[in-house]
């Protein structure tokens, strides 16, 4: 049939034979893509009298929005926080590799670091070259010394009189920053929270000994995320639930959701704790990898940066010890493990890795398969193993047969 599309001559691809995640349900529907966006086929039919140029047979697979990782420190031997000449080369390498885990967008995470490291990563779209960079996640340095975890103590900072000025002095510029993790009990932090939110930066609470009140105050000022729930914060206590209490706090302003990151590798959070969080507040759960540079590397012992690491399966230990040095589970592994540990539906597991992080970052055109959204997609089998990854409708990774 001759082409007769009045809006655009760009080719139209129709993905058939798939079950797409839309409206929180898996539906037997075709997915139409033009110019990198998801197309409304009914409008195409009636308005433009148009039809597809190419058909892709998905062979009955599940089609979900591409995964979004808002906390990832590196991988494949690359550490984003390592001060180096060419941070962007490292980010590029990781962005290409994580396509095979279904991640189509991510926030390279920088832990507490000297100022020089912060400037060198730019927001950019994904494609065949790799997953899109949504912006940096700056974890620290305005965090609690008592909950620093692996962050180097000498670079921790507090807010002096200047508040946001201190923050700007530390980071230089917020231009390519998507999210900042800070400890809300630090003096002067509440005004910083407010100012960051005003500038469109997502504020996350973590590496903190805040009590529930301080956490609620920060949420009032606009904070909307909790960095790796349970880790690097006070444990839940029944008379002061601390940051964990935000999951069921009645002081969260109406219409707003507090999201929380979970590392669902079965190691950094006991499955029972994962289930408690999920059952308490399912809509807020965001799967993150918090992956360290050892992620993606084969088992064995190797030197990474200043440390010698032993990789065994999903565990990465400080060599010769049983001390965990960080998570190395890939995003798709986390999705599968999350579903298995909580018994949740396929739809919920997929939304925790796509829709929820997109909602957290207020990215309306990502994390969903609605008309007009970016065609960042993953094809999966029924066990949620990845078959292919697409960015803007183009196939960027396919599982080898």
């Amino acid at each position: 049939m001759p082409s007769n599309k009045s809006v655009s001559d760009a080719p139209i691809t129709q993905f058939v034979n798939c079950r797409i995640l839309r409206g929180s349900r898996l539906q037997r529907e075709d997915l139409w893509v033009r110019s990198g966006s998801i197309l409304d086929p009914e409008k195409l039919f009636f308005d433009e009298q148009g039809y597809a140029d190419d058909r892709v047979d998905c062979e009955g697979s599940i089609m979900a929005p591409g995964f979004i990782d808002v906390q990832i420190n590196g991988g494949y031997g690359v550490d984003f926080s390592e001060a180096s000449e060419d941070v962007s080369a490292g980010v590029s390498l990781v962005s290409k590799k994580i396509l095979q885990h279904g991640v189509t967008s991510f926030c390279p995470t920088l832990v507490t670091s000297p100022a020089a490291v912060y400037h060198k990563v730019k927001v950019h779209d994904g494609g065949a070259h790799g997953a899109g960079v949504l912006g940096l996640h700056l974890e620290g340095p305005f965090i609690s010394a008592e909950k620093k975890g692996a962050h180097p103590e000498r670079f921790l900072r507090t807010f002096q009189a200047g508040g946001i000025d201190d923050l700007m002095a530390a980071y230089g510029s917020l231009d390519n920053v998507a999210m900042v993790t800070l400890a809300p009990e630090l003096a002067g932090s509440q005004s910083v929270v407010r100012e960051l939110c005003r500038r469109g930066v997502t504020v996350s609470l973590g590496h903190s000994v805040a009590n529930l009140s301080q956490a609620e105050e920060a949420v009032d000022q606009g904070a909307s995320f909790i960095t790796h729930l349970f880790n690097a914060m006070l444990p839940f206590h029944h008379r002061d639930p601390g940051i964990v209490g935000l999951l069921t706090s009645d002081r969260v302003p109406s219409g707003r959701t507090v999201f929380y990151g979970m590392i669902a590798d079965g190691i950094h959070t006991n499955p029972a704790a994962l289930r408690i969080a999920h059952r308490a507040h399912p809509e807020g759960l965001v799967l993150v990898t918090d992956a360290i540079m050892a992620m993606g590397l084969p088992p064995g012992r190797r030197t990474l940066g200043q440390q010698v690491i032993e990789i065994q399966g999903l565990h990465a230990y400080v060599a010769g010890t049983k001390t965990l040095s960080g998570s190395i589970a890939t995003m798709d592994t986390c999705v599968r493990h999350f579903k298995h540990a909580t018994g949740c539906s396929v739809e919920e597991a997929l939304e925790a890795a796509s829709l929820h992080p997109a909602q957290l970052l207020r990215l309306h055109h990502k994390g969903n398969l609605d008309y007009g959204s970016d065609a960042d997609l993953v094809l999966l089998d029924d066990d949620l193993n990845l078959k292919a990854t697409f960015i803007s409708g183009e196939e960027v990774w396919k599982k080898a047969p």
Partner: protein
Amino acid sequence: MDPVPLGGLQEQTRAITMRLVILDDYDLASEWAAKYIRNRIIQFKPTAERCFTLGLPTGSTPYSCYQKLIEYYRSGDISFKYVKTFNMDEYVGLPRAHPESYHSYMWNNFFKHIDIDPANVHILDGNAEDLEAECQAYEDKIAEAGGIEMFVGGIGPDGHIAFNEPGSSLVSRTRVKTLAKDTIVANARFFGNDLSKVPSMALTVGVGTVMNAKEVVILITGAHKAFALYKAIEEGVNHMWTVSAFQQHPRTIFVCDEDATLELRVKTVKYFKGLMHVHNRLVDPELSIKDQ
């Protein structure tokens, strides 16, 4: 009513007939209708120069018939590539993307599943600037397409065809109609049972427009349609029951299930049930493009 017809499909396209085809239930009635439509299209051998023009209804009655036709397309037995469609009606003022618009119904329940050319699809635009001009243009498009080969329709509980409500002219053409209370009530279930949300006006083909088709196939299923069917075929031609107009059409088939015949005379039902072996020659054998 006419003497026992002689042949099957070939005869049907030439003879003057009124057939009442009665199947046991909704599914069988839908299947019979779908097979008949399939056979007629395939036998017609439509081409780019000579399309098969099909008039189409919406609503719950034809739903299974559409499902069956989609099945026949999926199995490769029929193609809609050279079929032109003209829907009967559309609400006025309802956004086209609204889930209850007839555009949405046809897209979701039929067009998106088959290989029809979007340029061959015609549905009245209830949001047109000039509704009367839209109606006239529709009549013109039907004429340009060479007229309707087969118009498939349903019947309302008040005996209406399309939105030709009781009292409509039996020689009416495509026009704007205000919906009768009965129709609004019947359609309220699609609008959350809120009468105020149901559109009060629609564009509809006229009784005369459908009468111009070479053949008319009316699907009537369910006990709630029984009284209307009785009025349509056992009483006289009357503008209060507009489907009765087809008593004067040269080629009409009423496809019903048992429940729809509940208000008919036993004699009528027995007579036409006795003719099923003749009616079934129209659908057996099932033709397929694979054989061409």
